[in-house]
């Protein structure tokens, strides 16, 4: 009698969250994976096994777009890892100096781009880099580097890197904050012990602080990975669903959107869209597993 009553309120507490989460997130996720095994013939859903994936990876019309999007996505991620995270660490290291004044002000200001929507960020940079408005060429002229200016967003060779750097500009606040928090949690005694041994300044950062914040860098890397591999909004806002010029900025998110939702003359195909979503799911899953089993378990965590 008593045990059954206790069970009831646990169920009441858990039910809303579990129901919404299961119905809107988990079931559609598996449904999408399932849908990728079907196709539509004469307005009827037919099971075709792995045929969609064979088309996606094998049919030149599809596979070219897919590998292009995947390659672009890896480049997008690579730029983030190479630029965003080192800048984030540098800013955090500077901010964590206890003698630095106005540090709260800097932190707040540098975090501003992160709160802006992709639409604002995409268009703002599009305007600034636009050859029509001329802010970018004029500023380069002012420092004598005018000859360097090119319509970066409009050129196939540079547009993807430019967008990646815009995204870095937007999100650098997140690694900065997380590393900042990690640096603040390092106890003074450890740094003082290092000082007694003559380790100060830069070498204190490289030899003491950096090893201690490695777990945070790991978390940031996996967050960046997951974020980049389902990115869509910035490319869509700046370059549209066709991810121009000539698909040079196409990543998996925009490719999936065009495929399943249709765009201009292309009809939407939910089954191929599901196949791309499944591929994204597998890629993200591999990344998360590599992190959880390959990196996180091997990383030494220090208890203070």
């Amino acid at each position, binding site marked *: 009698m008593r045990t059954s009553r206790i069970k009831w*309120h*646990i169920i009441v*507490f*858990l039910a*809303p*969250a579990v129901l919404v*989460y299961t119905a*809107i*997130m*988990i079931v*559609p*996720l598996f*449904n*999408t994976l399932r*849908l990728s095994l079907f196709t539509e013939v004469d307005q009827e859903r037919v099971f075709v096994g792995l045929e969609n994936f064979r088309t996606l990876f094998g049919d030149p019309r599809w596979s070219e777009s897919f590998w292009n999007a995947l390659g672009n996505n890896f480049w997008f991620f690579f730029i983030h890892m190479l630029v965003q995270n080192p*800048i984030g660490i*540098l*800013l955090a290291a*500077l*901010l964590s*100096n206890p003698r630095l004044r*106005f540090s709260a002000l800097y932190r*707040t*200001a*540098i*975090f*501003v781009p992160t*709160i*802006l*929507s992709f*639409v*604002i960020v995409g*268009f*703002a940079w599009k*305007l*600034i880099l636009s050859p029509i*408005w001329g*802010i970018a060429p*004029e500023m380069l002229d002012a420092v004598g580097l005018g000859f360097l200016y090119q319509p970066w967003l409009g050129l196939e060779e540079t547009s993807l890197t430019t967008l990646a750097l815009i995204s870095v500009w937007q999100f650098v606040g997140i690694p900065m*904050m*997380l590393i900042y*928090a990690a640096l603040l949690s390092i106890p003074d005694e450890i740094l003082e012990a290092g*000082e007694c041994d003559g380790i100060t*300044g830069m070498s204190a950062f490289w030899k003491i602080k950096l090893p201690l914040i490695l777990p945070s860098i790991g*978390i940031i890397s*996996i967050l960046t990975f*997951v974020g980049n591999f389902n990115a*869509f*909004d910035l490319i869509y*806002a700046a370059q549209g669903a066709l991810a121009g010029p000539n698909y040079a900025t196409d990543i998996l*998110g925009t490719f999936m*959107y065009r495929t*399943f*939702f249709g765009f201009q003359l292309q009809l939407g195909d*939910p089954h191929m*869209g599901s196949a791309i*979503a499944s591929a994204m*799911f597998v890629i*993200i899953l591999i990344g*998360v597993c590599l992190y959880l089993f390959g990196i996180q378990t091997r990383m030494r965590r220090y208890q203070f």
Partner: protein
Amino acid sequence: MNKARRNPFNLFAAHGILIVYTVIALFPVFVILINSFKERRSIFREPLALPDGESFSTVGYETVFNQGDFFLYFQNSLIVTVASLFFVLLFGAMAAFALAEYKFKGNTLMGLYLALGIMIPIRIGTVAILEMMVSTGLVNTLWALILVYTAQGLPLAVFILSEFMRQVSDDLKNAGRIDGLSEYTIFFRLVLPLVRPAMATVAVFNMIPIWNDLWFPLILAPAEETKTLTLGSQVFIGQFVTDWNAVLSALSMAILPVMVLYVIFSRQLIRGITSGAVK
């Protein structure tokens, strides 16, 4: 002592780098804002000059107010964000309480199940979500967005809140039980007020991604009467792409609400991140 001698120079360099980066971070916002108050010719002639008596103009804002239904978009965004946050916090806190408070079979498993969604983005399931919303008739309603954002926010909310609920003292809850309070009263009257700071952190974390999302409004609710501010400004700018006054004003108007929220909540947000709640 070596350190003390080198410090002034280091601090000077640190300020230099931080100021440069702050300028880089704020410059685009600044350029958009000042030019939105200028007339067309001065936008092009002197893009970096502040608006003065001669160049001041609000013609862009007039176009925005006359052509776009920004008040409606703003209202939609507000409804979606507030309702989603309400459900994330309520359902998330209830589930977190169940996981933190009661020992039952499958507790750990349930915790892991709910935590799956922290790493797997909900966008992967978009095709099936759209199909479901179409078949239930929820497509082009704000409910579709509210449900999706609630599901999206719950995993992290449960994870963070259950960490905090474990810290609430057992004595307090047991005292309540001895006084004959029901488990529901204990949760709503005793525990919820104590985890309010954690709830605020969760709210701030969820608020910005929901407000700024473009993907789900575009797919689930693109109708004119359900457009959110983010989608509405995207469409508006797409249509008025050559009317620079209108584009700049629309951008400024989209920046304004988030900036206000950020100024109000920035302390909470930064404290939330730096308290290690996301580790």
